[in-house]
């Protein structure tokens, strides 16, 4: 027997031992809404109008911005309005799903503990019992253990890399922290962003976050991985495609010592559920608005067979849709969006992990994906056997349009395999644990704050709330987060009440 033959036989024997029968994995894509969107884009034909309804205010879009506008109108005792949502399920990026194990999010899954400037968020949370007498309800704060990161073959506590750092890495993390501390102290980086925006920070918006980091002499590979991860996580974009202003805002807008974030099994779907309990009667889902036209002192809003007439329109749907819907609106240039794929994996048992045990948010270093969140994390139970993991993948390498094309082209099997391959790196037995993988694709998931987006004249003009057509989507802040969506929704509602003489 030659040595080569010996080695071949030996390794074949070892590989043979590791092969086990793969389980059947069920699932599919759960959303088809892009078809509706494409019909708009391609100027498809819509059914003729057969009935007319009159309202003072019509809200277009039932994501957090639209629902927050409705919440404010309802809270002020105003009843003459309706909210039109394209999808069958309202919630936008805060939609959720539910199976026999648990509820789980389809996208946004937490809200950071709001700071003092986020007054509307605090007001909402007081109403929902999340904030009581200045104390955050313990059950809604993310339980221990919160986060872990997989690197160098094992899981460590926390997402910020802590093991294997050189003195140089540590020094750069420390210097960045100092810079962020100063930015935070400047008061220019707030949530909502409008409340702090200073012209003196416009320079920062001109360069990419990567360029800015390198200007500061931050060349640590670990630090740059972490900065990239943060940009992908909040903006769906690489640091090189992100405005340095937005990169700084991610860190400087929040206090570091807050114990949080606030989270629920169904993610921000929990908030949507509570809002729908209050004003679900105003919400009409499965109603795509395909035309908005100004007719003298009122607007005509067409969805399906119904024409709604309103004195005032709150356009809370993603702003990029507006030129396709609003008659006479010029095309937009400064709005870019990141495509995302999310997956919900049903697990019949937990796979093995080496290092820290399963946490709420689980991130893998140098993976193109963002890792996964455990939907059973907020359970009060001490014993958990089955769970659902929500797997996040911001398609940030390459251009958004190429990635949108990829989302449309590739079938469920392709993405299922891609996801399992990614997870197999950290959980070799994952295929033995998963029984179902459902997918949701988002062609335009989040506004992408590319360089120049924050100080864009186009964005700032549309965000102004003058006239009777009020734009309210979070993309008018340059980036999509819950607090911005809610702020813009509430502000648009306040303005609408003023316009119809109810303020």
């Amino acid at each position: 027997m030659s040595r080569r033959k010996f080695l071949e036989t030996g390794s074949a024997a070892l590989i043979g031992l590791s092969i086990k029968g793969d389980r059947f994995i069920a699932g599919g894509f759960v959303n088809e809404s892009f078809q509706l969107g494409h019909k708009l884009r391609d100027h498809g034909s819509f059914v003729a109008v057969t009935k007319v309804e009159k309202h003072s205010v019509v809200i277009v879009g039932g994501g957090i911005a639209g629902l927050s506008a409705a919440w404010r109108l309802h809270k002020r005792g105003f009843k003459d309005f309706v909210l039109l949502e394209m999808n069958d399920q309202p919630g936008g990026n805060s939609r959720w799903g539910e199976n026999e194990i648990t509820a789980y999010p389809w996208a946004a899954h937490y809200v950071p503990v709001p700071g003092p400037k986020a007054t509307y968020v605090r007001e909402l949370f007081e109403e929902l019992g999340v904030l009581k007498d200045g104390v955050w309800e313990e059950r809604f704060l993310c339980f221990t253990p919160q986060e872990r990161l997989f690197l160098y073959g094992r899981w460590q506590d926390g997402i910020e890399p802590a093991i294997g750092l050189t003195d140089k890495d540590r020094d750069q993390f420390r210097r960045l922290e100092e810079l962020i501390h100063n930015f935070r102290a400047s008061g220019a980086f707030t949530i909502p962003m409008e409340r702090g925006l200073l012209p003196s920070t416009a320079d920062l918006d001109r360069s990419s976050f990567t360029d800015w980091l390198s200007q500061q002499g931050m060349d640590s590979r670990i630090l740059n991985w972490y900065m990239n991860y943060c940009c992908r996580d909040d903006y769906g974009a690489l640091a090189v495609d992100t405005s340095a202003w937005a990169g700084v805002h991610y860190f400087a807008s929040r206090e570091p010592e807050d114990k949080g974030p606030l989270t629920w099994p169904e993610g921000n779907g929990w908030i949507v559920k509570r809002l729908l309990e209050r004003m679900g009667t105003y919400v009409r889902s499965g109603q795509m608005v395909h035309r908005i036209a100004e007719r003298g002192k009122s607007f005509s809003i067409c969805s399906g067979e119904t024409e709604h007439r309103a004195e005032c329109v709150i356009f809370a749907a993603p702003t990029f849709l507006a030129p396709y819907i609003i008659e006479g609106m010029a095309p937009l240039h400064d709005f870019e969006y990141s495509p995302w794929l999310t997956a919900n994996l049903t697990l019949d048992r937990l796979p093995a992990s080496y290092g820290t045990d399963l946490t709420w948010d689980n991130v893998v270093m140098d993976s193109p994906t963002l890792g996964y969140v455990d939907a059973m994390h907020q359970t009060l139970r001490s014993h958990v056997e089955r769970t659902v993991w929500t797997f996040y993948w911001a398609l940030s390498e390459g251009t958004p349009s190429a990635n949108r094309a990829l989302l449309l082209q590739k079938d469920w099997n392709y993405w299922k395999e891609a996801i399992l391959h990614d997870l197999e790196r950290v959980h070799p037995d994952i295929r033995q644990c998963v029984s179902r993988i459902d997918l949701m694709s988002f062609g335009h998931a989040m506004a992408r704050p590319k360089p120049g987006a924050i100080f864009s004249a186009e964005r700032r003009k549309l965000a102004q709330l003058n006239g009777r057509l009020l734009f309210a989507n979070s993309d008018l802040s340059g980036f999509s987060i819950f607090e911005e969506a809610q702020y813009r929704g509430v502000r648009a509602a306040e303005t609408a009440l003023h316009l119809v003489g109810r303020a």
Partner: protein
Amino acid sequence: MGILLFISVLLIAACGLIYELIAGTLASYLLGDSVLQFSTIIGCYLFAMGIGSALSRYIHRGLAYRFVWIELLLGVIGGFSSALLFLAFAYSQGFQIIMYALVVVIGMLVGLEIPILMRIVRERYHFRDVVAHVLTFDYLGALGASLLFPILLVPYFGLVRSAMLFGLINVAVALWSTFLFSKQLPSTRALRVLCVLVICGLAVGLAQAKRITAAAEDNIYADEIIFARDTRYQHIVLTRFKDDIRLFLNSHLQFSSRDEYRYHEALIHPALAAIPTPRRVLVLGGGDGLAVREILKYPQVESVTLVDLDPEMTHLFSTHPMLTGLNQKSFQSPRVHIINADAFPWVDSSTDSFDFIVIDFPDPTNYSLGKLYTTAFYKAAARHLSVQGLMVVQSTSPMFARDSYWCIVETLKQANLKTYPYHVYVPSFGEWGFVIASGHEYQPPTLLPAGLRFVSVDGLPSMFQFPPDMSPMTMPPNRLNDQVLVRAYDQDWKDISH
């Protein structure tokens, strides 16, 4: 012919290394300090190999015959080494002496193998080739063994069976050698019969390996295991030594029947006897029925609701004669209602009110159990207290886990409860702590049920006094989103075990 010969070199090298690794691993398992164990075992083994090599010069004739015998001996001694060591640890005092003796014997035999084999084959090849080939395959065998051992053998076969498997390989080489070297052997028949007999012996051993480990494990638990079961939720082990029955859950001691009365009397009576008219009682945890036994000493108590996660646990303590003897058939009382549920969701959804709530969970060793020691949990539990109601919490040791104990007290305070910490001595546990918590003032009772063996009215005041080495520590409360208790508990026990 040549290649077959060198494969036997590879195999015997692998066998030798496996025996050495098994001895090192076993010693690390059983004695701890793996650096010391592996260093001394490798040292002894290599030294013994040197002795073997040195002795090989005194063997002048019958090289092939002696080689077959060495392989046979190695197969028997090496093959049974692991089983022998397990049993030696369990049943004898001289484990280390036996272990090093075994290592030395095996090392000497392995040291003899290669020099003798090289001399057997030296006529057939150039000396240069003999050395090169033999040593190459020797090292290759070592590599194979060192990879197989952690990846395949330990996880899938275990130490006892791995040793026997490689013993079989040694004997197979012996049998094979009777064919390879038939010309150099006087008679092969007797040798072959012997080989087959040893193979049979090892095969029987391989089949019985589980019983050998079970016999050894019995003794590692110190006492006889009378019950062991993996339920969906935990690993339950009951042991008995004379009249002492002990319950272990996931290897943590829950009680010893010799002194459990101290624990359970102290858990129940200081609070329950102080409640004017206790009618309804809730027990969370306590699936052994021993706390319920104490509660049933109060005729005013009309109903006891016991919530325990594991149905196999409550079933065991409802039916096993030895255990129903301990809890005096408390689970068979018509006053007792058993609910098998996860405690936190149950407490959250129930609307019943109770005069006395007993919280008797395992210590907060992980974040899952830690949820049952949080402000959120205590607030939810306190909502079930009646106007006269009291709650008592088993709170780990104020002596060994002082930070943890006072963290639990602080957590109860932050749940807006008044707290009354106390402690007792339970020999099998050491100093143990409890906390009475309530929305109102607590006064120790002046009357106790008859027939108690430990708690007395006179002794009560001293239980509420903490000497300086257990006195209060300033600790933050344990919250769902910041489980300081689990980290403190981990640290407390690390501090005393090192």
